[in-house]
């Protein structure tokens, strides 16, 4: 029997409200399947399950708010059989069906372990804590924004309190990247064109392969390297606030795929339909404020991550090159990183790697 617990959908989440179950007892579920819709203070999130199995019992009811880590459902592992053929009294079977409880999950107290009506009632009582919230209260738009502000405030306060940040900045010439991008886009219809934003994302992801100490989490007093390079991309929401969902395995994906996924993430972030893995998996964050017209951004690390890359506007600057000065498009790239895990020397090498990657856009 496996407990499916409420995952933390981001470092700043302490509790969640179940809005809806997408599965019922008896359903077979596959790893990655969306099983529930949970309201965090940021958004309604499709929560995925992380193992295959069969739903035995739902422990939390829609409308209930429970802390992160609370068992929400019980599953039978693949191949795990409902112990033996249970002896179940007809009244118990009928009651269990009415209540939506899988008989396999109920300990029997009758003769030869038979499940009695009383057992079913006891299991039902245990599964349904006092609250019988029949309807789900609707959160108004304004309330959502206030909640989100509080959540961002809590996460950023924690970051500034706990993470000894250091900051580095580097000017990255973008002429080659721009020329390459123009040529790439020239032959393509609008929906297939790339935005400049995807090039630095890929460059950062590739550079992180060489600097694993900037990709991962600092938890329980130690660094855990990320299992993949999942780049969290900061997305501003139209009603205010932001989310930074993960672009999974960004280093392994062609630019066109990153573009497609980024576009999809932006759209879903704004319509509040992100998946739990997207909110919880990012191993590093990239924030791009160039569109808003600033030259550079030194970001606050999103705990428990250990690094954040900030990208500014690409703008024409006088640039000394080969003994002369010319106007060159330049972008400021910055790194905020956690001194408990890395130091400025490695951070500098990382930013240099990002810069070099962007000088060879055809290899991205």
């Amino acid at each position, binding site marked *: 029997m496996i407990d499916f617990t409420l995952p933390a959908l981001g470092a700043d989440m302490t509790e969640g409200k179940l809005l809806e179950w997408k599965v019922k007892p008896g359903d077979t579920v596959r790893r990655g399947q969306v099983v529930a819709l949970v309201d965090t203070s940021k958004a309604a999130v499709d929560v995925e399950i992380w193992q295959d199995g069969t739903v035995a019992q739902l422990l939390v009811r829609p409308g209930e708010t429970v802390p992160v880590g609370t068992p929400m459902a019980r599953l039978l592992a693949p191949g795990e059989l409902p112990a033996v053929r249970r002896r179940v009294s007809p009244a118990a079977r009928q009651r269990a069906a009415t209540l939506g409880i899988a008989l396999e999950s109920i300990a029997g107290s009758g003769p030869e372990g038979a499940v009695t009506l009383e057992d079913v009632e006891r299991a039902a009582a245990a599964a349904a804590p006092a609250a019988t919230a029949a309807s789900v209260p609707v959160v108004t738009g304004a309330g959502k924004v206030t909640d989100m502000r509080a959540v961002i405030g809590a996460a950023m306060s924690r970051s500034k309190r706990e993470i000894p940040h250091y900051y580095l900045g580097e000017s990255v010439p973008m002429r080659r990247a721009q020329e390459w991008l*123009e040529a790439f886009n*020239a032959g393509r219809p*609008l929906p297939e064109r790339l935005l400049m934003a995807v090039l630095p994302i890929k460059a950062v992801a590739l550079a992180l392969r060489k600097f694993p100490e900037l990709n991962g989490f600092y938890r329980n007093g130690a660094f855990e390297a990320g299992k993949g390079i999942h780049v969290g991309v900061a997305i501003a929401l139209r009603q205010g606030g932001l989310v930074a969902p993960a672009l999974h395995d960004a280093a392994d994906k062609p630019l066109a795929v990153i573009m497609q996924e980024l576009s999809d993430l932006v759209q879903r972030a704004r319509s509040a339909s992100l998946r739990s893995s997207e909110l919880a998996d990012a191993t590093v964050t990239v924030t791009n404020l160039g569109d808003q017209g600033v030259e550079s951004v030194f970001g606050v690390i999103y705990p428990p991550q250990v690094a954040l890359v900030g990208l500014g506007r690409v703008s024409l600057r006088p640039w000394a090159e080969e003994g002369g000065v010319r106007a060159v498009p330049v972008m400021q790239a910055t790194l905020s990183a956690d001194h408990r895990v890395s130091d400025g020397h490695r951070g500098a090498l990382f930013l240099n790697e990002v810069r070099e990657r962007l000088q060879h856009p055809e290899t991205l």
Partner: protein
Amino acid sequence: MKTDPLHAQVIAVLQAIAPEVEGEDLVPDEPLRRQVDLDSMDWLNFLIGLHRAFQVDIPESDYARLVTLDDVADYLRKKTGQGPTRSE
């Protein structure tokens, strides 16, 4: 002030990306991106929307000409011949 019939259609495309936009609040000869908070992804989606609604190709080299609502309407008029094909 005369109203350009194309404006309403362009604004409808814009509203699909930025639902908070009120057509009457837009000044037609001021840069759109100064009036509406559009990042480059929003802008690209806006152009994709125009491309679909008006059946025109918009090469990247033309992006710089599309600054104000008037610019966009003029550009579309030129591209489509006389006026827009009424979509749906």
